[in-house]
C-alpha cells in the first residue's frame, strides 16, 4: 500500500520496535515487569500468551483495510454490503475472524461528503483492519481540535477540501469502530485490485487525507 510518511534509513523492517522503552520512565518499566512477572507466576497468562498476542496485534496492518477498499471499488455489490454490514463483509473477504472484535462501520466519502474519524474520549480505532493507531490520532491535540476545527486540522495534514463539501467528523464514542472508504482516484479504471490497494493510504481510511487524483 502507499505510505503516508518517510522512513529513516533502516536495513530492517522499518516498523519493528526501535528499542526497549524509549521515552518511558524507569518506574513505568519496573511496574510493567513486576506486573508481568507476578501475573505469569499466578498463571493469569503465560509468556507465550503475551508473545502470541503481540504477533496477533502486529498482524493487523492498514494493508488489510486497503484490500477491502480496493475490492469495494471494483465490486459495487460488495461495496453495498460493506456499507450495510461492514463486519460480515470484511470477515468474508479477508477470511479473518472478527467475532471478538468491536463492531465495524465503513463510511463512504463522496463528492458531497467527506468523513474524518476520531475518538475524542480515548483512542477507539478500527484496529482489526488498520492495525495500531498512529500517535497523533491518540494525541490531545487531534482529539481536542478535530471536532471544532476539522478543516484546520486537515490542513495540517496537507489536506484541503472544496468549500462546499460537507465535512462529517465521526466521534467514535461507543461500540462502533469506523473506517473511511475513500474516493477512488480517477484514471484507475483499468487497474487490478492489487494495484488499486497499493494506492490506498492509512490516512485516507481515517479521513485526514484524500488520495491523489480523487478530487475535483
Amino acid at each position, binding site marked *: 500500500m502507499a505510505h503516508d510518511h518517510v522512513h529513516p534509513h533502516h536495513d530492517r523492517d522499518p516498523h519493528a*520496535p526501535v528499542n526497549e522503552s524509549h521515552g518511558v520512565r524507569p518506574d*513505568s518499566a519496573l511496574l510493567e515487569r513486576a*506486573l508481568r512477572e507476578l501475573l505469569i507466576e499466578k498463571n493469569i497468562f503465560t509468556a507465550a500468551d*503475551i508473545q502470541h498476542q503481540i504477533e496477533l496485534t502486529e498482524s493487523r496492518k492498514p494493508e488489510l483495510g486497503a484490500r477491502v477498499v480496493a475490492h469495494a471499488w471494483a465490486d459495487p455489490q460488495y461495496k453495498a454490503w460493506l456499507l450495510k454490514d461492514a463486519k460480515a463483509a470484511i470477515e468474508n473477504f479477508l477470511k479473518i475472524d472478527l467475532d*471478538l472484535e468491536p463492531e465495524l462501520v465503513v463510511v463512504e466519502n463522496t463528492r458531497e461528503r467527506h468523513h474524518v474519524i476520531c475518538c475524542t474520549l480515548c483512542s477507539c480505532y478500527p484496529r482489526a483492519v488498520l492495525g495500531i493507531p498512529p500517535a497523533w490520532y491518540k494525541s490531545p*491535540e487531534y482529539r*481536542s481540535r478535530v471536532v471544532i476545527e476539522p478543516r484546520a486540522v486537515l490542513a495540517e495534514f496537507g489536506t484541503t477540501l472544496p468549500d462546499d463539501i460537507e465535512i462529517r467528523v465521526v466521534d467514535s464514542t461507543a461500540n462502533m469502530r469506523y473506517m473511511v472508504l475513500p474516493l477512488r482516484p480517477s484514471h484507475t479504471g483499468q487497474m487490478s485490485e492489487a494495484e488499486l490497494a497499493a494506492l490506498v493510504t492509512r490516512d485516507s481510511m481515517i479521513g485526514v487525507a484524500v488520495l491523489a487524483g480523487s478530487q475535483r
Partner: protein
Amino acid sequence: MTRGVHDLGGLPAGPVDLSEHDRTFFDQRVDAMMRLLAHPEHGHYTVDAMRRAIEALPRDDYFGLTYYERWVRAIRQLAIEKGLIGEDELKRKLAALAASGGKT
C-alpha cells in the same frame, strides 16, 4: 459541570504532531497484557474498566505519561481491584526488582 481529564473534544490545543514512532517492546508488552486481561471471553475485566481507570489518573499523569505508561498504571489498578495480585506482593516485587538493578 464535571468534565473528565480525558474528555477533550473542543478544548484549545496546539498543532498536531505528525511524527510517527515505532512501538517499543514496552509498548507491545503492555498492549498484549491489556488485551489478555480484558479479553472478551477469558479476561478478568472489561475495556470499559480500563478506560475508567485511565480517566481516574491525576491530571499530571494523564498528560505527562505516554499512552502505554497510562495503560500500565490502569492495569495495576485493575489487577489489584480484581484480586489478581495483592498490593503488598506488588510492593515486594517492585522492591526486589529495584534491588536487583532490574537484572534477571
